């Protein structure tokens, strides 16, 4: 049955020091072969891990302590990049501010909007499939150049947004040309693509057992109490998942800011997302060491944020078996 490979010497003794039985030997050799097979299956991923993820990460860490412009060799400068980022580089601090505002506004908005609509769609109504599909489409294309270009058009001085507002008697100047409003257009773009989050919430909401709602009704709970006492707690794992993924995604946003601002970071850096600034430093000005330093600061911040999320999860996430 099993094609016998001779077990190695080390496999012939059990932990008790006795000679292993043939059955134990066969089991160990099968384990060894399974391990070998597993690693064979994992080869592409392991290669990718080392060559494309871990290796580059280490190299990036090294680069963050250097000054490197690709044309000559990297020059070691110690912590100079980090010092520059936080003390003399006002554009860096600006990009951090812009990104933070973007994350802190768009993520909660996304959560609220997608949850509300998931609740609205919940009742197993007709056309549910069609509605779900239609709501999902924007999130499929939201990060594309085409939509970002459209956004730049419709939020222009004579774009349809301003035309619509004019119908209500509100006269607004250009959104994308104005430092106050350019970031708002990008936040709206992010929230516009709420469909994918909504679909996840929808699935979760539909999985809440009916009995819980019925029990709550019997206890005299109205709509709001049912939501806060039944639906919301049951959804906390999904809220956790969605918030985490949305936050991490928001920190990495690039295409929208690039296209809407024409690659500059918008009027007076008002749309200078962290990733955009990193790109400009690394590839437009060839300060690769500096860009690497920026990337590592982001990693550390995101790790801290994720860690924090996971830690607080203990307090507010209820996994259904409680």
């Amino acid at each position: 049955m099993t094609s016998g490979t001779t077990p190695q010497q080390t496999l012939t003794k059990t932990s008790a020091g006795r000679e292993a039985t043939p059955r134990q030997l066969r089991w160990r050799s099968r384990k060894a072969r399974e391990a070998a097979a597993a690693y064979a299956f994992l080869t592409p991923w392991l290669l990718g891990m080392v060559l494309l993820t871990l290796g580059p990460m280490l190299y990036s860490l090294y680069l963050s302590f250097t000054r490197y412009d690709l044309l000559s060799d990297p020059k070691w400068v110690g912590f100079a990049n980090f010092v520059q980022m936080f003390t003399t580089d006002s554009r860096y601090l600006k990009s951090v501010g812009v990104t933070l505002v973007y994350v802190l506004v768009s993520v909660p908005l996304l959560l609220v909007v997608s949850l509300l609509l998931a609740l609205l769609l919940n009742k197993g109504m007709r056309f549910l499939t069609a509605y779900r599909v239609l709501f999902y489409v924007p999130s499929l294309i939201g990060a594309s150049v085409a939509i970002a270009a459209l956004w730049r058009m419709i939020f222009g001085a004579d774009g349809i947004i301003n035309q619509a507002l004019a119908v209500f008697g509100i006269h607004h100047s250009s959104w994308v040309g104005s430092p106050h409003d350019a970031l708002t257009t990008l936040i709206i773009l992010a929230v516009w693509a709420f469909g994918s989050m909504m679909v996840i919430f929808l699935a979760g909401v539909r999985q809440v057992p009916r009995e819980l709602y019925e029990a709550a009704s019997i206890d005299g709970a109205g709509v709001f109490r049912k939501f806060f006492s039944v639906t919301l707690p049951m959804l906390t794992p999904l809220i956790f998942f969605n918030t985490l993924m949305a936050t991490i995604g928001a920190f990495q946003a690039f295409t929208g800011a690039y296209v809407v601002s024409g690659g500059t970071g918008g009027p007076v850096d008002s749309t200078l997302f962290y990733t955009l600034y990193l790109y400009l430093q690394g590839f437009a000005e060839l300060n690769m060491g500096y860009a690497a330093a920026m990337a590592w600061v982001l990693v550390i911040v995101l790790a801290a944020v994720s860690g924090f999320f996971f830690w607080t999860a203990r307090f507010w996430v209820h996994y259904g078996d409680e």
Partner: protein
Amino acid sequence: MTSTIRARAPRPIFGRKQSTNPVIRAVVRHALIVCALAILLYPLVWMVAASFRPSNQIFTTLGLFSSHPTLSNYTEGWGAGRLNFSRYFFNSFLIAILSIAGNLISCSVTAYAFARLNFPGKKFLFALLLGTMFLPFQVTLVPQYIMFNYLGWINTYLPLIVPHWLGVNAFFIFLMVQFIRSLPRELDDSARLDGCGHFRIFTRIIMPLALPAVGVVALFSFVWSWNDFLGPLLYLGRSDLWTVPLGLKAFLDSTGQNSYGGLFAMSTLSLAPIVGFFILAQRLLLEGIATTGLK
């Protein structure tokens, strides 16, 4: 005294309201949803409609319909100036197909190992996999660029395709792991009894059953590759190598008020494959996403 809970029809106090309420509630609900959808999708629909309007009429109206529908935006935009969208669409498709193939193969074999096999270091490696799902791409961007530059892969498609053959999308791997885990192990066991090695089990048993997950991976892989902007921006300098997003950006840069029609036409065409494929496979996709979220 025991008070029994009587599951009885509601008392007549609600009277007639009870019977009309559900209908009205449903109508209101549908109305709200349709309203929300209309607002949400209006920019998109407007753009598509605008692509059929002559350029100088585009910004004059909020409305969708025009007195002079025309296809000229499509014909002119396709080859405007030095732009060559035939080339760009071809390039995008080529990269997308090769990326999808790579993703399917590398992610499924990796997922099989994590889902079905036991091996030393599994916990650690799985944690590593999860970790990379949360890793921001910025940290590998610059070194990967330097590496590809050193290899002479700038101005080729290799930097955009090869990573997908090495399982760089942790999200897809994770998705498939979850799915494969849900397949009953008895199938594996009976196959093993028949003398199948792991590879046979993988190809003959697991993969055919994993088609739904495969479909999800294929679709998302297509969407992400098709929409990818930063990658081509970095690696594809020569204009004959450009993908559709780069072509659109170039169009945008050289465009004044008079050529928005062409831009919208090409944008519509660039979004059509994604939306099209999605609508065809939407059930598959939406179920797949929903189950991933519910770990």
